[in-house]
């Protein structure tokens, strides 16, 4: 995630430039000359968004004067492999376009080294969710092509027996083998995870609980006090949930529903004071931990529609920005959140100024439907440029396509497995 301040006079020109990169409102043209996203084979999603927070004044409800905080440009991509390599690749192949964009940012030196500048503006994410860790763009595209080929090939008359299912599966395997040999389908074997990553992941897996263990005695001692502070704040913090401005809402909606997947970018101020700042920091560390080690295979608790999601702090943890790529329409996304994981939303977001009142950190809050819906739309920002590598495919599609491939690659299967596999086609 790259974050850079927009120069005072640069915002207008920047917005104009970003608009030229789109083929539909907010939807990047994969071949646009500024940054032809489609050429980067390892890039899943990317977005460029101007972070201009209209809710900065809300913090006055806590008796804190409205801060003067900068307008940022953020550039976020989700790619396979190390981030450093992806950025270097971008610089190498689209340096001119990137310079065109970043010349609207503070401290950008047109003569200087682009890669160094971009690295200097990288931000650490506070938490990072990946729907299926290790699934590459190449794999997604190959498996999608595989499903299409098999779906078109498979006869659809009911099968009389399990033996027939086994026979049909063998025929389809032979068909795929032939297609692969002819170069019409590809089934590249997955690359092994680098040892360095595995070690880092293991260390992270152990280090966080260890740190927790060390802090546990202090936590136990402080717990009554912390709970008292929490409950007091939950009862007294201001709720700021007016309906979003209608024109702004319409502007957001004009960027949505051109594909089966949509984008979401939101920003807000963290409630003032040490307590909330520490609490949100700790909770995001825990969320990041569960995303990295537990929710790595297609679901974030009950939500199965998020491709990638990120949380990042801005301005010394005074503000938090959240971004996601999700399947379905905005209303369905929010209803899913409210009905399936309202408790999770409260954990992650109730530290934002104005959030609907929570109880015990988990209850109410996002369950207060209208307040929550107003809140999230009011804090949402338009994503000026959004790219995705695989239009028309949802996470359910990706999962099914992968299961088709897995079933294809098994040496032998039971009759029931063969039948279940054919049902996927």
């Amino acid at each position: 995630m790259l974050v850079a301040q927009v120069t005072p006079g640069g915002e207008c020109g920047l917005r104009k430039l970003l608009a030229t990169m789109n083929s539909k409102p907010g939807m990047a043209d994969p071949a646009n000359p500024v940054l032809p996203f489609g050429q980067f084979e390892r890039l899943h999603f990317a977005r460029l968004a101007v972070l201009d927070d209209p809710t900065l004044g809300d913090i006055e409800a806590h008796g804190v004067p409205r801060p003067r905080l900068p307008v940022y440009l953020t550039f976020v991509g989700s790619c396979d492999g190390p981030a450093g390599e992806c950025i270097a690749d971008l610089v190498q192949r689209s340096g001119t376009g990137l310079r065109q964009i970043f010349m609207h940012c503070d401290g950008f030196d047109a003569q200087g080294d682009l890669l160094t500048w971009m690295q200097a503006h990288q931000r650490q994410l506070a938490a990072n969710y990946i729907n299926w860790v290790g699934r590459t763009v190449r794999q997604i595209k190959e498996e999608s092509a595989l499903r299409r080929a098999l779906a078109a090939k498979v006869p659809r008359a009911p099968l009389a027996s399990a033996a027939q299912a086994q026979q049909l599966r063998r025929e389809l395997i032979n068909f795929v083998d032939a297609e692969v040999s002819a170069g019409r389908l590809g089934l590249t074997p997955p690359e092994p995870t680098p040892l360095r990553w595995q070690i880092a992941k293991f260390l992270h897996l152990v280090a966080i609980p260890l740190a927790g263990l060390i802090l546990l005695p202090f936590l136990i001692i402080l717990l009554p006090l912390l709970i008292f502070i929490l409950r007091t704040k939950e009862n007294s913090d201001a709720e700021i949930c007016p309906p979003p401005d209608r024109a702004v809402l319409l502007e957001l909606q004009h960027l949505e529903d051109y594909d089966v997947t949509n984008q979401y970018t939101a920003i807000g101020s963290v409630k003032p004071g040490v307590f909330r700042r520490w609490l949100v920091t700790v909770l995001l560390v825990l969320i990041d931990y569960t995303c990295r080690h537990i929710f790595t295979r297609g679901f974030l608790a009950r939500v199965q529609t998020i491709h990638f999601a990120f949380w990042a702090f801005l301005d010394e943890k005074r503000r938090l920005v959240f971004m996601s790529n999700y399947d379905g329409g905005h209303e369905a996304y929010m209803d899913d959140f409210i009905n399936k994981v309202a408790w999770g939303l409260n954990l992650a977001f109730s530290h934002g100024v104005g959030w609907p009142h929570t109880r015990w950190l988990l209850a109410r809050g996002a369950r207060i439907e209208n307040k929550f819906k107003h809140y999230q739309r009011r804090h949402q920002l338009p994503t000026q440029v959004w790219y995705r590598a695989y239009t028309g495919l949802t996470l359910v599609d990706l999962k099914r396509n992968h299961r088709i491939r897995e079933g294809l690659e098994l040496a032998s299967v039971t009759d029931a497995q063969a039948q279940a596999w054919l049902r996927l086609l």
Partner: protein
Amino acid sequence: MSTILSEGRSVELDDVQGLVRFAYKHLTEACFLLLRVQDAAAARAWLAQVPITNAIKAALPETALHVAFTSEGLRALEVTCDLREGFSVEFVAGMASDTARARRLGDVGANDPGKWKWGAGERVPHVAVLLYAKPGRLAAWEREIEAQYAAGFVCIERLSTSDKLREEPFGFADGISQPEVDWERKRPVRDQDQLEYNNLSCLGEFLLGYPNEYGLYTPRPLLVPQRDPDALLPRAEDAPEQSDLGRNGCYLVMRQLRQDVQGFWRELDRQAQGNAHLRERLAAAMVGRTKNGDPLVAPGEVNNFTYQADPQGLRCPLGAHIRRANPRNADLPRGARGILSRLWRMLGFNATALERDLVASTRFHRLLRRGRKYDAAPALSATEESTSADTGLHFICLVANIKRQFEFVQSAWMMGSKFAGLTGESDPLLGHRLPDPGDSPTDGFSIPQADSPDRRLTELPQFVTVLGGAYFFLPGIHALRYLATAHSKGS
């Protein structure tokens, strides 16, 4: 005073328009008049005394009359801006207001509001007058009403209806699945997960001013009592110091849907290659019920069933019309008893539960349907020539939250090409068939078969075309009178 205004007071049935409670099956004649205001003062004068049918059951009426307003209508009647702004964003904007909404609702291609007979631009109605009457009574009564409103309104569209109420034009029994409305307010007001599907809906899902399924009051225009000096309006339950313009009212969504009856059966003949038995079976699979209304998933049951025992859609396809429109599921997929199992499912760790969790919490997305079909009887086969080109449904549904109920069902469930993990198909009856981004088709329909690949119908043509539509507010009767007084007037 305080006891009257306390929470949970009983419903003022004499203030609710009867349409919310009754479908008027015995009033077989009906027509819907779409009016525009000509003279605001005369229009208000008529509205102040128009005889509205209320929801008291005492005697079944001989005729019934209902009045609903669009937000443009409220503007034309010179209702103050702040009152209008108190309604939901969708109502204020209108059904045909912008391309983003059109994309969500599937109003694209042949359904584009630019091609509508009514409901867009200069053809947005201000007021809908819905007339129902016993056989033979409509014509005279309509003339009478017409004479009354003529000074204030001009009729831009008269939507006639057919008196054959049982079947929709394709020939299927219609209007079977309806939520049961909790008129007695038996459901406790609290926000709690429902672990079983239940057809009983909180009153607040269909009437403003009462708690909804979240145990909350849907936002609606509330005003200080000084603005209602004659105390016409009831007080708000959740804010007793304010008058509630929404109480006992709801939103009425109307859409004119033309059904290509011949095209439908011709296509099924093509898919069945002339096999009459197969043709009926395919049609039933698309609908999810047989023609006489028997649900495929539970023959013999009328409305008392779920899809729990048919997760793969072997009995009723996942994408069947009635399964999309009402998936009949609870807030959490079923699992073993006990708090641990529940926690496990809440965290997504139960793989089977997760697979059945793509669509959940139906209770927040229910519609009270009050549509009527129009014009000719169904053409029974492709060879039987039907002379009428315009046959279809005047779809009407009543909701308290247009976005969460009507728009959600229409966009996520009916038009959604990825509903319940399907791909390449939208609603088999309503789909517009235009390809998705990435050029993936939406004109298929898959019929799961045991232990075999799905049977797939492909290249279905469009059977249903939207010809018009609008979002109305169907006020409580006191609210209607209030809107006709000078107190609601202003710029």
